[in-house]
């Protein structure tokens, strides 16, 4: 698979299917693993990084479950390619800043990705559309079991999987769920909900993970604690919290729909109107407006537009995607024009 082949299909996390897909965008499990006796990437020299890279890619090539994968060496990718993979949630922003001795392995369906020499030697991620953490964990656990047969992991019975940062020690697992909460934001309840989550040792982040802002009413909720609780127990806790947030978002949507329908329809249709008629638009504005159109679609206030087509716009309007689609480097101003053009074309009302 070449990197451009990814362009031909939508990203898994935006497929818009799976349980509770009106509110839950995607479920993700990340496992951090390191190799015994070898320095962690930040402390390793070039030779050690290369050694890890070879060892891990060899191990991956022996696993039947990972047959349909491609290794992307970061030193062979340009900055647009890297950003493209970040936009598709296949690797982290931090990983994209590096090159030598670093790689990401991606399966053709984009459900599994393994970053090599990010903060830890291995960061494997399994991502699925909708509210699906258990199934996602099952896949991640299986891949991990196969890899453990090939790779000598750094592990202590008392402290579990040993990671570069002690905040990941133990299971090395981070389970996260991406939520779309426009009604909680509009009714100004979201801060209260997020504050409650923080008290329970859960993290909230924006669309692109660590250090990013909540954009377009998207929030990523994940566990903070990785030691002292088993994987399924952690997932059970996340699930419990997510179910409550889904319930709250549903209530807020119903409340607005019954009490404040005119305001809601106004906001949604104005957003739709801007997207259909703008000639210059930033990616931030695009996401914020698409978020409201998505809500309109969920509530049946907007019709004649296909959910998959809408979801695809979230990703194909991102900077690197635009440049990949156009197959050339574009300045920020050129992108804003191109973006508006693509949106107008895709949202052109057909009837």
């Amino acid at each position, binding site marked *: 698979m070449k990197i451009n082949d990814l362009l031909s299909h939508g990203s898994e996390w935006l497929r818009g299917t799976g349980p509770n897909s009106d509110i839950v965008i995607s479920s993700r499990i990340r496992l951090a693993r390191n190799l015994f006796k070898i*320095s962690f990437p930040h*402390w390793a020299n070039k030779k050690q990084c290369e050694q890890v890279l070879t060892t891990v890619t060899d191990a991956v090539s022996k696993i039947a479950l990972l047959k349909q994968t491609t290794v992307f060496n970061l030193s062979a990718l340009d900055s647009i390619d890297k950003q493209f993979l970040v936009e598709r949630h296949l690797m982290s922003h931090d990983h994209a800043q590096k090159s030598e001795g670093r790689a990401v392995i991606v399966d053709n369906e984009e459900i599994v990705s393994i970053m090599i020499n990010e903060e830890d030697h291995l960061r494997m991620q399994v991502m699925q559309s909708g509210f699906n953490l258990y199934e996602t964990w099952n896949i991640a656990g299986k891949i991990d079991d196969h890899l*453990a047969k090939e790779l000598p992991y750094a592990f*202590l019975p008392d402290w579990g999987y040993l*990671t570069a*940062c002690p905040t990941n020690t133990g299971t090395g697992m981070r389970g996260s769920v991406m939520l779309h909460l426009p009604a909680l934001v509009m009714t100004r309840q979201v801060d209260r909900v997020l504050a409650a989550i923080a008290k329970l040792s859960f993290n909230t982040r924006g669309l692109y993970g660590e250090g990013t802002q909540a954009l377009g009413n998207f929030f990523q909720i994940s566990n903070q604690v990785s030691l002292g609780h088993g994987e399924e*127990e952690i997932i059970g806790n996340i699930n419990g919290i997510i179910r409550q947030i889904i319930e709250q978002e549903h209530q807020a949507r119903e409340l607005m729909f019954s009490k404040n329908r005119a305001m809601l329809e106004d906001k949604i249709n104005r957003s739709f109107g801007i997207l259909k008629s703008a000639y210059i638009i930033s990616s931030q504005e695009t996401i914020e407006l698409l978020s409201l159109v998505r809500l309109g679609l969920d509530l049946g206030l907007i019709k004649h537009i296909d959910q998959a087509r809408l979801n695809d716009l979230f990703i194909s309007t991102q900077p690197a995607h635009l440049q990949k689609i156009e197959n050339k480097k574009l300045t920020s101003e050129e992108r804003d024009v191109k973006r508006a053009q693509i949106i107008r074309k895709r949202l052109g009302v057909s009837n």
Partner: protein
Amino acid sequence: MLCDGCGKNQATVHLTEIVNDQMNELHLCEECARKKSQDVEQNFGLGDLLGGMADINKNEKDKEAVSIKCPNCGLTYADFRKIGRLGCGDCYNAFKKYLAPLLKRIHGSSQHVGKSPVFAKKTLGLKKGIDIQELRNKLQRAVEQEQFEEAARLRDQIKNLEVKGPEEGEADRKA
């Protein structure tokens, strides 16, 4: 009021800093305030936070901790306090005494519960403890999905295992 930073623009942001118990008021224009907040963000990363947590107390014992060096990768405890990252898996053994309370502070526990790699089960004689843990995980899941018959079966199975093998207590959870 003019900005304390540049002395040119009108101060619109009023900041109270407390450094070493000294209160200091700052009146800044928007631009200087932005610069100031960037300073704060850049100076305060995760490394500082963890380093700060690892900073147990500044006494003699602490001096000893700082000079400990991981025999495998050469990272010192002082390095760890500075960068907030360990150097390799062996660092966990080298700094064990100091990491245990740190892990407890971060996670509220310093005992791993959860899966183990296949080789660990074999070489570390973990099998039994792991089995029980896996069953507990399944039990948790069954309860959550309201599969109560399955849950009852699992509960009995765990009880059975727990009663049967105190001689293998070594591998079991200390809790």
